[in-house]
């Protein structure tokens, strides 16, 4: 089920995400005070290479991490295996990566003429 390769990917993406998640929680605690608005979010993130890299690497890591995690759960708890399991894992990855990439683009560079 989980061989060395998937295990390593899971731990590697976890190690990448650990500091990013700590950062994300800190930003959340800071930003949530007084409520959130679109302008406030965009003012922070728009045109910023740093935030693009921050959220961008998170999206890459979380798509892999989430796909492997759901793969294990659907195998162990729901008996999915073989090709169906393979397809399911890739579909989860594609969904998370696609939506995540779109979101990162939207809050960083979408409105900015490059």
């Amino acid at each position, binding site marked *: 089920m989980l061989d060395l390769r998937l295990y390593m990917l899971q*731990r590697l993406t*976890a*190690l990448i995400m*650990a500091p990013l*998640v*700590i950062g*994300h*929680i800190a930003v*959340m*605690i*800071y930003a*949530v*005070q007084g*409520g*959130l*608005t*679109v302008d406030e*979010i*965009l003012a922070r993130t728009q045109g910023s290479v740093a935030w693009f890299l921050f959220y961008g690497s998170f*999206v890459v890591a*979380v798509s892999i991490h*989430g796909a492997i*995690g*759901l793969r294990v*759960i659907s195998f162990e708890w729901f008996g999915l295996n073989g090709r169906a399991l393979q397809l399911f894992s890739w579909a*989860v990855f594609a*969904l*998370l990566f696609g*939506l*995540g990439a*779109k*979101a990162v*683009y*939207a*809050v960083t560079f*979408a*409105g900015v003429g490059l």
Partner: protein
Amino acid sequence: MIRPHRTHPLWFAFLLHRLSGLGLALFLPIHFYMLSLAISAPARLDGFLRFTDLTIVKLAEYGLVFLLAAHLFGGLRLMALEFLPWSPHQKTMAALAVAFAFLVSTLFFLKAI
């Protein structure tokens, strides 16, 4: 599902890690979708953000932040278990991970309301 052989703290730590991971994986697509509205439909996102001012939604957010923090600290515990020298305090570490998650998410909740 919680059969007798499973009633020990580290099994519950495993269950929390799995369920928090599952919850986050289900929440993330929605989260990403809402954020991508920032450009295409900022008014709709703002409408949604106002909706998050409701106390009941704040409570749901509290839950989500708890899941995130629990998965983070629980994951760090597991990686320490795997890659650092063995600690005889496995149950304490699991309890600490939950305690930290609770602390951090409560801090978020207090700032949010």
